């Protein structure tokens, strides 16, 4: 389906659907996320069988603070859709979609690791890129670059900007 047709088709179900730069983007409530993706995957007209990625952005000072985005692709129709879910700062949780798209497993672990978003029902929610004992979630805008002390050969090395000399 061409993006214009797809946007129209999706808008009938999800009113908050826009078409921007040739991409169709739909915003859904987090309670509706799992049933929406299940429907989009099962419906032969949309047939979104491949989840390209799950990722997040952080907008401190705004509400919702976190936005999750799910980039869907259909190998049958060769069209794309991005589903977005806003999460409040006080409760950054979302249902896991690993039950629908097994590939979401690692993507969700990465979002948990780097943004601190918790995915309910995830089969194995652990950090993936950072060490298990790491504190904080570095892709949050509130975390500075190079602003953490690191443990090296048994001693703590201060952050780059506080090493002196």
């Amino acid at each position, binding site marked *: 389906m061409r993006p214009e047709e797809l946007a129209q088709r999706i808008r009938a179900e999800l009113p908050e659907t826009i078409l921007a730069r040739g991409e169709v983007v739909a915003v859904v409530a987090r309670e509706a996320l799992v049933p929406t993706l299940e429907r989009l995957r099962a419906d032969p007209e949309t047939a979104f069988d491949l989840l*390209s*990625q799950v990722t997040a952005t*952080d907008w401190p000072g705004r509400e919702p603070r976190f936005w999750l*985005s799910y*980039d869907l692709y259909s190998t049958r129709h*060769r069209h794309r859709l991005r589903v977005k879910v806003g999460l409040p700062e006080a409760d950054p949780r979302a249902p896991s979609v690993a039950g629908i798209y097994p*590939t979401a497993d*690692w993507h969700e672990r990465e979002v948990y690791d780097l943004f601190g978003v918790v995915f309910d029902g995830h089969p194995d929610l652990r950090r993936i890129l950072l*060490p298990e004992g790491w504190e904080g979630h570095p892709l949050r805008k509130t975390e500075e*670059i190079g602003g953490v002390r690191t443990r090296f050969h048994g001693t703590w090395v201060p952050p780059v900007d506080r090493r002196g000399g």
Partner: protein
Amino acid sequence: MSEREGVSAVRQETMIVNMGPQHPSTHGVLRLLLELDGETVLACRPVVGYLHTGIEKNTEYRTWQQGVTFVTRADYLSPFFNELAYTLAVERLLGIEAPPRAQVLRVLFCELNRIASHLVWLATSGMELGAVSVMLYGFREREVILDIFEMATGLRMNHAYLRIGGVVMDLPPGAEEKIRDFCAMLPGRIAEYERLLSRNPIWLERNVGVGVLSAEDAIALGVTGPTLRAAGVPKDVRRDEPYSGYETYEFEVVTREAADCYARYEIRLEEMRQSLRIVEQCLERLREPGPVMVEDPKVAWPARLEVGPDGIGNSPAYVRHIMEESMEALIHHFKMVTEGVHVPAGEVYQPVESPRGELGMYVVSDGEHRPYRVRIRDPSFVNLQAVPKMVEGGLVADVIAVIASVDPVMGGVDR
């Protein structure tokens, strides 16, 4: 304890083995936790992150143009593809397109890069499965491509040759001839690899029927690239969602049905031939001269660049111009280099077909002169997740063949 009881007690115990992170066959620093029953793999859990360098976070602290030099370092065997996905994403946010000649040059370098990447895959896979001569041959041919890259961009890897609005500079004199020589040389070499491997009993024993991943499983796990095409799914971003004019090139999307390691081997060899076809079409199109960077001074990099002994740098003539002749040029240069281009607020997801599958850049701008968020959807990261599905129930030696057939690059996985 009788001898019989002792045997059964041993049989009930499984062994946990760490493969990696420093194992020659793990392509860098991949660690696999394997649960073994004798030679049989019961469970496999990949552990990644040893090469995490915070590329995505770093881009948020640099100008849009500097972003190119960061993303090129993610998957270090396909630098041009990282640059292409990023620049295309930023160009879509800006609402601009690179000039035709720049687009041809981008396709040309990407396809040469695909061949170079597949050659490294062939070389390392050969080495891992005991065919050391193939390793030597693969690296020998790749070196010719790296020489071409070095000639054109000043560097063998991490070129930062593709820039927002075009490419850094046109091909230097002599480069086209070098590429033509390479195109004439490679088909014979590919035939040589086939003579060495395609009917080699050891190669067949190690690859045929090993690491089977069905189309259904591959799609559910998000697997793309040669691994998906080996299962008969003709998904190729160049064909399905064309960019940089790929819809105007003649090439075939290669597929196989067997879905095993051997099918992936066949696909990569054939893809090298298809890439050569595209390279030859690019050379034809390069007869047409033209600019390689957009005209808009608010986007184009102000400096004239040249390849020097240590990579790309400002040409001495340009430095003289801004330092001695024109105050306005100096001010403009200073403004563009320190502040850079302003990109309208918005977000895009730009996929390209890298040697390992769908490489996507999700780029978000809040209207400032730095990216708000860059997420690299690296195909190795996603494809690696499918390894347990391919190795569980098989032999431990097959783990090596499977990892090789997936061709993960940890720089891309960990970013």
